């Protein structure tokens, strides 16, 4: 069957800063920020777990605030600053948060990981030494099906350098 090439209808050009770099792209009105990051910029570290705003796997920082990139239209992010999981490490060095998560065996399958990292980074930027309850609260909008959350909470607490959470067992 002949295949008709489709020109995206009403394509818009957007410019934004992603992980410190100026990026530009043509998007359709309905393209989400998540799809733009993943499909056009190749930043596949941001994951899609539900595409309806519940799981948090797609969380990125949009002008320093955590946002669900599955619910943000790419066009509306024009001119914004976006940070994704790929931007957390600097010059190949894991951030303190990433390192603490690694040391704490925070994750299993890794699918929820980008969302938790971004959400936790946003928390720590605002509140550098949160209590365990504050960490749990801040992460309560992100779903992880593998871990039962304790290892993730422990990782964030370790990154904050605060006291080990109540349940921490020394190894």
């Amino acid at each position, binding site marked *: 069957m002949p295949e008709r090439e489709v020109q995206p209808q009403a394509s818009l050009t957007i410019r934004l800063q992603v992980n410190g770099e100026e990026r530009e792209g043509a998007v359709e009105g309905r393209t989400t920020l998540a799809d733009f990051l993943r499909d056009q910029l190749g930043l*596949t570290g941001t994951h899609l777990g539900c595409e309806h705003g519940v799981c948090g796997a797609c969380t990125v920082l949009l002008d320093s605030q955590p946002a669900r990139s599955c619910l943000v239209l790419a066009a509306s992010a024009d001119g914004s600053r976006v940070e994704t999981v790929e931007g957390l490490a600097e010059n190949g060095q894991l951030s303190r948060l*990433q390192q603490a998560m690694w040391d704490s*065996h925070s994750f299993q399958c890794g699918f929820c990981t980008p969302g938790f990292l971004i959400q936790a980074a946003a928390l720590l930027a605002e509140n550098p030494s949160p209590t365990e309850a504050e960490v749990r609260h801040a992460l309560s909008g992100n779903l992880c099906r593998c871990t039962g959350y304790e*290892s993730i909470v422990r990782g964030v607490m370790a990154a904050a350098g605060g006291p080990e959470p109540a*349940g921490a067992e020394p190894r």
Partner: protein
Amino acid sequence: MKARVPAERYTGASVRRVEDERLLTGRGSFVADAQLPGMLHAAFCRSPLPHARILAVNTEAARLAPGVVAVFDGAQMAQMASPVADPGDSPRSGGPVSFGILAVDKARLVGDPVALVVAQSRALAEDACELIQVEYQELAPVVTVEQALDPSLPVIFEELGGNRLFGPETKVFGDVDGAFARADRVVRASIRQHRHQNVPMEGRAILANFDAGSGQLLVRAATQGVNTTRQTLAEQLRMPLDRVRVVAEDVGGSFGLKFGASREEVACCAASRELGRPVRWIEDRWENLTVSGQAREESFEVEAAVTSAGRILALKVEMVIDSGAYPGFAPLVVDIVREMIPGPYRLEALSFTGSGVVTNKASYVAYRGPWAAETFVRERMIDLVAQELGISAPEVRLRNLAVRDEPPLRMVTGPSLAGITARESLLRAVEILDLTGFREEQLRLREEGRYLGIGFATYIEPAPGPRQEGGEENTEQVRVELDQDGSLLVHTAQMPHGQGHRTTLAQVAADEFGVRLEQVQVMVGDTQRTPTGFGTGGSRFAAMAGGAALHGARRLRGKVLEAAAQILDLAPAELDISGGELVGPGVPGGRLPLAELIGRIDLAARSGQLPPGTDADLTATADFDGGESGWSGGTHCCVVEVDAATGLVRILRYLVVEDCGDMINPAVVDGQIRGGVAQGVGAVLLERSAYDPEGQYLSATLMDYLLPTALDVPHIEIEHLSPVRLDPDVNFRGVGEGGMIAAPPTICNAIADALSPFGPRVLEQHLPPTRILELIGALPD
């Protein structure tokens, strides 16, 4: 050859996972991350009705829609791929049924795929799905077991002649009538589990790429085992096995869901072959919740023959499983539940009747600890017995648990209970929780209108279970190979999807062979080099794959030392491999890096300098059945507070005392346990795959199907018991499923205990606030 004990062992240490650096930096590689030139995207047009005849499918408009490359309806797909057929002649068969990869004449559940659209983007494919016109003739939906057994309702599969899929079949172990005759009383209960489901954060996914030139189908899959996926695809697509290659990289969780290849995945491969282009399908969350599969909907009629002293002599059990629309896994579940229901207890006799039905709901799939109903029913029943006899529930357990040095140390259904530590786990849990102190506190708080409860559940989990005398050979294969640079490649059919096998298998192999952890690469997920084995599942990893890696590394080490001894003219006993180097007093300079040694062995072999009979092929394969390792198990204990005004349950304390043998990586073990318990918390307090009376699915988004969050899952205390070591070498045991097996009865027992002043008998597993208010009489039942 003797096992070596290096000074510092990786095995037993919570070493950091080798998987994590990639995953933490956003460089994981899931199927949805893969792009190929010319790649097309799939979307399915799905039935909005639970039960309907398909009279006509008109795909005309969809074909002409922008960006659409092809549309396939059920009839076309039937030309491209074989129907899923079960001849109904195997003992585990669900009866003689056959159904299309896409629905042909009939839709059997909401979401049944009716047509496949392949287009330039997912969005365009979905747009075109909207344009497909399907003419349905509605049939009365069969939503419950009662409806399935109602002959006045339409049958879902004509060839079954009814909606009963199998059974009822009764098997009797021991002298059931004698035990019931000796009993002081019979305790009866109807206990049920509700439908809930896996919900991995990554749904199903596939990228199929048929190369017309070579006739090869290359598949990127999200799977628990590439061999199984390849087998299914080759059969359904009627292709020779060697024309199908399945590769898997990162997999975002599964919990039993991603085995073989689903109908949608087969359809995408068929489309790729037809079009000669790559076709990718990424299941969305609606599809995942609605059609990927569901589990656990089982009901039980139980009678227990008990003595006044609290001995449970025998059980009569009738189990009915709701298999959902398309038969598959349910008959096997019934088999395992029957075998496992005695658990670690000294039951003298059992009569077990199992049967299954089909309904217009999502198909039954494996979900973490698929046979878990045996523990739920038994542990709930024990508490009901305790309540009737006025004996404490842990005490009833103690009076019935098998004692390790007292024969017969065997379940009445057959399997040996050698090495179990169930008793010890219960005693330890009672001690840690200070049961006496808790009871005082509980009474005191009740005076204040606060309702606390404590619950226990004791279980064993085949991990992989004892050797079955005369049973089929069931092994896991590992191939160990030295690469030219001195690194050790460990090939396994296990397919990690969160379990950290790339780390844990490397720990075992590194210790046994004598290399540093960084020198080991665990190779998974490519049918071109993956050894035989069905994949990750059934708690096969630790004992079976771990043991095979240990024996494989040991064998290869023997070979290398032998060859090195020839080259250096020394005795193998004078040599050792340690830290990735050949060491020994006679080795020139005291040490020789492995890479150099391999070069020399290779050269010597090629120039004929090795004596005949020396094996210079630096590869070793080992098959291992898990040895004597047998059972994992333990006791979970939970303390809850129930708010009688709102019905909300708060978990105040959760304790796991368990034994999974020698741990390879304790942090990985604890992660498996906590993750499993979290799913149990969800099952009892939040999760339910709900259908309305018309068969419409009500839990199709994550706002309706509630997963537990960081606020719902408590801190989980874990104590590991020291195991009984029955195998000379391998005493690791699987640990993936126990958390999810034991948590639901533990939490339900705790809630039932908290509600005891209100007097309800808790006979179900799903206890959200509304149900609790019904149970205490605050809401009408």
